[in-house]
């Protein structure tokens, strides 16, 4: 404000004119902005386009658990069979043949 008071008369008039012009120019844009809602209106159902569908989310959640669980059980079974096969082979290699151990022919 002090700067405005110190300005020469013609410049002051021009500045005020520019500011008023900007205000006038901006006013339609301000009016065009969406107004905040004055009150909330209850509706029975949300428009379908605005809803996040629940069924795909629920199906993905359950499907993921089922698929991963089955995959894990299958992988565990496969790993167990493999290691138990290896163990049986190693133990049979360590044990002397029955005939050799007992001396029977």
């Amino acid at each position, binding site marked *: 404000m002090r700067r405005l008071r110190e300005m020469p008369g013609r410049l002051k008039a021009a500045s005020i004119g520019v500011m008023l012009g900007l205000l006038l120019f901006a006013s339609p844009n301000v009016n065009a902005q969406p107004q905040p809602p004055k009150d909330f209106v209850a509706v029975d159902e949300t428009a379908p386009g605005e809803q*996040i569908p*629940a*069924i795909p*989310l*629920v199906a*993905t*959640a*359950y499907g*993921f*658990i*089922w698929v*991963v*669980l089955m995959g*894990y*059980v299958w992988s*565990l079974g496969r*790993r*167990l069979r493999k*290691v*138990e096969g*290896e*163990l049986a082979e*190693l*133990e049979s*290699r*360590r044990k002397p043949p029955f005939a050799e151990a007992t001396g029977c022919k």
Partner: protein
Amino acid sequence: MTRPTLYMLALAAGMFAMAPWIINAAPNEATMGLVYKIYFFHMPSAWMFLISALVAGVASARFLFFKKATADGWAVAAAELTVLFGSFTLVTGPLWARKAWGVWWQWDPRLTSSLVLFLMFVAYLLLRRFGGPGSDKLGAGMAIFSMFNVVFVWVSVNYWRTIHPPTTVVPTLPVEMGIPLWYCVTAFTLLYIVLLRLRARLEHQRTRVDALYLAEES
């Protein structure tokens, strides 16, 4: 597979097969609608995730401080199951959040501490897989350290500001929602026990195989 393990597996499989009908019979929630039904698998998964982390920590402590060799097998088994059930929790949670909160993820205390716990056990498994000699003891220390994060995950919803439902939700559930929840908790617990026994057996058999190879070489 022992007979009790086989029976438990059959029972757990039967319960899982029946679960969709039992969950479908539960009513929808007033504000979240249908999507809250993810809760019936999300919550038991999260419980097994935390219990498994505790089992891994306790077994590691037995291995490290009491020199129980078999405890290491239990710790590895529990750590793998922590990652398995942790992945269920961390996948189903965001699917539920997308609808309930409008976002897939929030860096809030419960979600962040759960992710950290999950990553700790992923790191544990990587260490055990690629760590070489001595990784069993280092891993045991890591599992004990990680176990204490369970406390933070559990209390996070009650002590810090979070958008995740608090632990008090469970006892206040209406009966028609509580029945499917406890049914799923039972199914998940049975499945967890079976998987833990089988996975520990695998680890113990691997130890025997290694011992036999060493005996053969010497």
